[in-house]
């Protein structure tokens, strides 16, 4: 997948988990990699960039096990950005679904029509 495009989607995913609650880096990575195929080297740079843009703030909190953890907290600016991305995504993905479902959702149907067409061209 186009790297830029993928980055944009993951950005939205990161925003979507942090809109619900503050989390530390490793937890965010775990949450996302449970659903989509991404690892740390994609997510961490996004966290960092969004923090630089003031979409997140960070604070340290002691943990029961070992060193304190750096938590990411969404700012109001971050929330506005989340809304904007979410809207863009919804309208984009809505359009994508309309295009790919033009011929219906049933693969057998699509395959049957495709096969007839192939045979017709061969017959010519």
């Amino acid at each position, binding site marked *: 997948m186009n790297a830029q495009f993928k980055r944009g989607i993951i950005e939205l995913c990161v925003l979507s988990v942090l809109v619900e609650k503050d989390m530390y880096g490793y937890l965010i*990575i775990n949450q996302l990699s449970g659903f989509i195929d991404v690892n*740390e080297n994609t997510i*961490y*740079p996004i966290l960092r960039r969004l923090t630089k843009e003031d979409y997140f703030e960070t604070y340290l909190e002691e943990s029961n096990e070992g060193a304190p953890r750096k938590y990411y907290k969404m700012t109001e600016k971050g929330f506005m950005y989340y809304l904007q991305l979410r809207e863009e995504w919804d309208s984009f993905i809505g359009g994508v679904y309309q295009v790919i479902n033009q011929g219906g959702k049933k693969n057998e149907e699509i395959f049957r029509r495709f096969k007839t067409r192939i045979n017709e061209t061969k017959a010519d």
Partner: protein
Amino acid sequence: MKKYLEDLRQELMKQKLTEKEIEEIIADHKEMISNAIDEGLSEEEIKAKFGKPSQVAEELADSDDQEPAEQEETKGFQLLESFEVKGDSISVDVNLIYEDITYQLGEDSQIKVFYQGKGKVEKYEVSYEKNEFRLSAPKRHGFNFFINKEDGINFLVELPRKVIVNVLKQVIISSDSVFKNLNIKQFIANTTSGDLDIDHCQVEKFKLHSVSGDSKIENSTFEDMVLSLVSGDVFIKNTTITQDFKASTVSGDVHVTDVTCVNFEMSAVSGDVNGKEFYPQKVIFKSVSGDLNIKNKEKKYIEIVKNSTLSGDINIS
């Protein structure tokens, strides 16, 4: 984990990130990896989860990519002279009175001097000999207090991107000067009332002497910085000083935001130093009534090595 972090540090250094950024990134990874270890992940699993250090560094450099400072358009300027540079280093010596000047990078191997304005450009000394570039205003005889604006002249100097500037020395009276994207080993600037603007430069040794000119330094890295101010103010932002930072000021204030350095030495009469996200490791403070105020989010320890003041205060919070 140690090895991974060391490799990551190496890779980050290759990507020209600032020291402060590298420290932050390493600390974050240390935390995340130890989280993974606590969770019982094997070394293999951790490797898969975190990726190769080189990839991490590249991704970070990509997304942290600092745009260079926007360069001045040469349109609207006329080319005065150009000099072919053969070696890989040059020195620059500039003496001006009231003419504004901008230095930036050019893509070819020439030093190019542009000008605009109606002033008598032929009276300026412009030369390039033995790897030294010189630009000097005509010597003035007697008193010339009234300079007709219509006779004004501004310069734009382009230095070859691939060339290192060994020494850049600029002595000016009231000219404003702008430095963009330069790589300088030794940078000496003297100004009476002219303002200085340094953006996206890499400098080893920097010495600024300013009487009443204000200076702005942004997005740059220095090895050592020495400021000597009378009443001029200095604003430093998003800049790394890898070694020492010395500021002596009579009444000029120094504003420091997002800056790290090792030793910070301040000597002031009534000038203040106001730091925000300013992280020196050690501080030497001498003042009559000037204050040192630092407001940081991260609570890193700052050691006060020496503190002698009459009525000044150190406030670190």
